[in-house]
């Protein structure tokens, strides 16, 4: 894992003291709320439906066991004993007191963490594959690229006041687990047989009220030129992105209004100018090597034998939640934060401490947060799987449902969020409670994603089934869409029809699944079936049932 140097620590410590002074001045009245609001937001502190909410950055979703213990302790000391893991691979605390937040941030800084750039119109936390450095199919560890981008984008003065927030995702595998197609910039690490190590660069993707898939703006960028090229994209966006209408301010609107070709030409022109006229921001190979060394984990030898286990639920859990590792004697283990009928993404302080303990025992003291709101132990010896499973059962964290119908992404919705038009979590609960292991085994992989408003924090545009909460004459209603996908076959879900009530949603989900299973070919995902047969059979079944 990357470790702070003296400069990193100094920056974070100084920021805590600056913020402490800002809070003191707000409480004394020296700062008005209007003056203080942008300052607190720059430190990840929102004012939500029930109180303040602090969003803590987890760079590219990687945590040490020490950091996870610290988050557990913070949730006990400053919050109500739990945290919520988000689709940006971060964690949110829902109940901190303003007066205590400087101490909270100081405690975070002790474990090399902060909340800088988790809000505001700046470059947000860079996200990546949760199996980075451990995936069987990756070109290299994408976190090296993420860390280079993190250092470049942190407190970058030119990009502190962008037209709108800006999100970058990096993948290094052909199977995209970072959803790069729906990011402002998507970076795919490649090793071209002729041109060597480098990147594919995508731009202009995003969800929200108008969803777009990113356009490929450069098929190959040499590794050495990453930052100057990203800088060129940011400058074009900063110059031409709209600032008069926040709903049209994201780069996706710019790319699509200019056209991908014209946007790319503008970026290339800007890039050539950067290369010709300015001191290059690009980092030399030595710096790539230095950063890379932090992620160069030498795994101890392991025996090949995998222990048999007749423990109830083990076989299904191993088949569903265990993902191949780059070394056959190891495995990536996904710890589901989606108990059937439970709250997606929430973990109690005890569970966080329990996972930290298991990471120390079984997983090289490393934990990952996934954009699907689960946790991962990335380096588990296969012979330890049964012992790990038993321990997870004790923590109520052994739900075997990765990528199954009950593994639902849901934003906090109107239960917590001031922007939401409807609740998300109770819908997720009512759906996930209907699926047990045997039914999920019959159905296969299915991604359901729920957002409580058009801001799409629950990624409903790229769900196999996407659910959007809306306010229909004062009543919570839900619009269904199907056929979306966030991976290398990214697609936007198509709206099925009129919005339905909360009570009607679970039966409508059943109807969609029934139609899919009736029409699907061997191994076909729901998006593929939708592409092949269209929406009509789904509409007939869903609305036939709803109106019955």
């Amino acid at each position: 894992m990357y470790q702070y140097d003296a400069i990193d620590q100094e920056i974070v410590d100084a920021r805590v003291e600056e913020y402490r002074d800002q809070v003191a001045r707000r409480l004394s009245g020296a700062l008005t709320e209007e003056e203080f609001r942008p300052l607190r937001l720059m430190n990840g502190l929102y004012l939500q439906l029930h109180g303040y909410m602090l969003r803590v950055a987890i760079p590219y979703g990687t945590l040490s066991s020490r950091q996870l213990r610290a988050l557990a302790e913070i949730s006990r000391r400053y919050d109500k004993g739990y945290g919520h893991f988000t689709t940006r691979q971060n964690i949110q605390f829902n109940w901190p007191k303003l007066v205590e937040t400087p101490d909270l941030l100081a405690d975070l800084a002790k474990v090399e963490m902060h909340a800088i750039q988790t809000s505001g119109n700046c470059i947000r936390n860079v996200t990546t594959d949760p199996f980075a450095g451990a995936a069987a199919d990756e070109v290299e560890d994408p976190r090296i690229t993420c860390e280079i981008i993190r250092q470049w984008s942190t407190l970058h003065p030119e990009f502190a006041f962008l037209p709108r927030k800006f999100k970058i995702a990096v993948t290094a595998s052909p199977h995209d687990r970072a959803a790069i197609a729906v990011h402002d910039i998507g970076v795919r690490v490649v090793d071209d047989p002729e041109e060597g190590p480098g990147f594919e660069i995508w731009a202009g993707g995003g969800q929200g009220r108008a969803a777009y898939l990113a356009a490929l703006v450069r098929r190959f960028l040499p590794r050495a030129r990453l930052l100057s090229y990203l800088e060129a994209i940011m400058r074009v966006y900063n110059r031409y992105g709209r600032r008069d209408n926040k709903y049209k301010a994201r780069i996706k609107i710019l790319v699509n209004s200019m056209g991908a070709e014209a946007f790319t030409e503008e970026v290339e022109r800007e890039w050539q100018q950067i290369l010709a006229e300015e001191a290059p921001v690009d980092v030399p190979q030595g710096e790539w090597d230095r950063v890379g060394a932090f992620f160069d984990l030498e795994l101890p030898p392991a025996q090949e034998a995998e222990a048999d286990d007749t423990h109830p639920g083990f076989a299904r859990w191993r088949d569903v939640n265990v993902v191949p590792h780059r070394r056959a004697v190891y495995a990536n283990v996904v710890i589901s934060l989606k108990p059937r009928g439970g709250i997606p993404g929430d973990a109690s302080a005890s569970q966080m401490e329990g996972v930290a303990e298991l990471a120390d025992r079984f997983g090289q003291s490393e934990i990952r947060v996934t954009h699907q709101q689960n946790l991962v132990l990335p380096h588990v010896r296969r012979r330890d799987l049964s012992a790990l499973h038993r321990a997870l059962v004790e923590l109520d964290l052994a739900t075997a449902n990765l990528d199954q119908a009950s593994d639902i992404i849901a934003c906090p919705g109107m239960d917590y969020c001031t922007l939401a038009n409807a609740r998300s979590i109770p819908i997720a609960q009512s759906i996930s409670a209907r699926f047990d292991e045997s039914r999920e085994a019959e159905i296969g992989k299915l991604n359901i994603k729920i957002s409580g408003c058009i801001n799409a924090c629950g990624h409903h545009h790229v769900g196999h089934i996407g659910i959007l909460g809306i306010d229909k004459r004062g009543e919570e209603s839900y619009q269904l869409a199907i056929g979306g996908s966030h991976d290398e076959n990214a697609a936007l879900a198509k709206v099925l029809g009129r919005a339905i009530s909360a009570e009607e949603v679970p039966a409508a989900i059943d109807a969609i699944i029934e139609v899919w299973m009736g029409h699907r070919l061997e191994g076909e995902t729901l998006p593929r079936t939708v592409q092949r047969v269209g929406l009509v059979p789904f509409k007939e079944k869903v609305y036939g049932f709803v109106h019955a």
Partner: protein
Amino acid sequence: MSKVMTAQRLHDGIVVFWRDGEWTESVLDATPLDEAAVEMAMAEGRADQAENLVIDVGLIDVQLQADKPVPTRRRERLRALGPSVRADLVRAQDMEI
């Protein structure tokens, strides 16, 4: 329709409601305000905001149920009650979402 004055406490962000010159955490204990009382209450609320005790002072619509004010809009009921998915954090047990 009656109204209740609400805000969030500056130092901890907790949602509060106006009850005869002070702030209470339970909407059921709040003072329902008729049209004539609204202006005077808001003046006091704004004064507390100026004193940095509370932020986001505003009015919400309520209906009286067994003489207790219950917000008419779901968002305000959730705001008064706490998250509907955490029974352990509910603030007003005898109010429904």
